[in-house]
């Protein structure tokens, strides 16, 4: 069962298996909105969580493929509890540091052993240059460097590796959200606008299209004949609430935009019987 976390009306998917299934099995695209841990300061490639449109989340819930959950309100922790959590973390960090320092020192020791011969030769050459007699063959056993390793080895805290967990740790209990009722974290249920948009969305999705947000083109949805990674959108869907007047200026603006970006504007409205009617708006071609 897919889990969709809702927060203030936004639907988020945190598990990558769920995100993948939503795209591959259910033909819903969503938008990745998280920063990637390794490349944080850019917006070209984003990572989890996957944010779904309210219509996408509702469709999954209605199909029974997903549940909407929210984090239960966190119990206010006492000061001491918070302090001890902080202490535990600091302790963990210190232990990790000591372990890493030990391992680094071991590696350095091994490295020095490998290079012992080179070091001895270098030293002999220097002594010759200075006019002293070369030492006898290097003695077996730990070299000077190795002996001084323990005291001279420097491993600053900045060089330490720190693990950043990228799987969202659930801080507390989760509780299910009923998508049919409006609530603080899912306020869409029952709103006329949401109902109209959902009707149109479900109909378009039911016809086999891929439907994404159309705000970049001034519309409600963008309709693709296939996966958005492979196709350009064919239609900009504008949802018209029943009986709402459309100013002609808006029709001209929408049609003009559609012509210039080579997409057809679709005026969509849902009848009372749930049937959605579509009108395509195109430039007439009259010069």
């Amino acid at each position, binding site marked *: 069962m897919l889990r969709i976390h809702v927060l203030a009306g936004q639907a988020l998917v945190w598990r990558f298996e769920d995100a993948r299934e939503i795209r591959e099995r259910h033909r819903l695209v969503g938008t990745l909105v998280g920063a990637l841990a390794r490349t944080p300061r850019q917006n070209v490639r984003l990572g989890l969580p996957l944010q779904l449109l309210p219509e996408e989340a509702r469709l999954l819930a209605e199909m029974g493929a997903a549940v909407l959950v929210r984090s239960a309100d966190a119990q206010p922790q006492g000061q001491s509890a918070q302090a001890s959590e902080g202490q535990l973390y600091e302790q963990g960090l210190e232990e990790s540091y000591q372990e890493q320092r030990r391992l680094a020192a071991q590696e350095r020791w091994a490295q020095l052993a490998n290079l012992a011969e080179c070091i001895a030769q270098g030293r002999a050459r220097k002594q010759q240059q200075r006019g002293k007699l070369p030492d006898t063959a290097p003695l077996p056993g730990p070299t000077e460097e190795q002996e001084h390793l323990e005291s001279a080895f420097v491993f600053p805290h900045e060089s330490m590796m720190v693990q950043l967990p990228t799987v969202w740790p659930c801080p507390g209990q989760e509780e299910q959200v009923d998508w049919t009722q409006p609530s603080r974290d899912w306020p869409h249920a029952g709103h006329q606008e949401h109902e109209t948009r959902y009707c149109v969305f479900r109909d378009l999705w039911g016809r086999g299209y891929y439907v994404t947000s159309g705000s970049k083109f001034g519309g409600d949805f963008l309709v693709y004949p296939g996966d958005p990674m492979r196709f350009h959108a*064919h*239609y900009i869907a504008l949802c*018209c609430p*029943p*009986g*709402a*007047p*459309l*100013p*002609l*200026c808006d*029709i*001209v603006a929408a*049609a003009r935009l*559609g012509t210039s970006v*080579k*997409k*057809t504007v*679709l*005026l969509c*409205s849902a009848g009372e019987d749930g049937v959605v*009617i*579509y*009108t*395509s*708006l*195109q*430039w*007439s*071609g*009259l*010069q």
Partner: protein
Amino acid sequence: MRPGAVAAQLCSHTCSSRLRPVARPAAHPPSARERRFTEMMSMDVADSTQVYAAFLVYLDLLEGRNWPEVTCFGLGELQLVCLQGRERETESFQVVVPTPVHMSFSHERIREIMKKACAQLDKPDSPLSVILAIVESDSTIVYYKLTDGFIMPDPPDDTEDKDNKQWRKKRKKLFK
């Protein structure tokens, strides 16, 4: 509104690039175009602004775009004067719905207009389609086509131009 009064009003527009009926003293017989306007008015179907818009579109199609044939008909229940014509002899008839820009339509009303207007054409097999002619207060007319269902957009055919543009940009950057 009487034809003479309308003709005088038409003259007062300053836009000279648009075709206008020439003002005549009331004594001269009305031209074919003016007769058409009277005909539209006498249909008593719509208010004068819509009829005026219809008349402007009628003139634009016939005189400005040289459509060979344009006739008008009224949609009583919807209070609109509509036009029916074809762009060339070889093409089929289309319905043009003129409307002043300040009118607003709901999607349902647009559908009704499309259904009734296409019933006029008497072509039950072809998809519902009208041309909406939006008339501005300065007599600019824009034409947009409304069709029932999904009409795929034309595929982008100017890929060559696009490549050239990007190539030119790259060259500029390289040789800067």
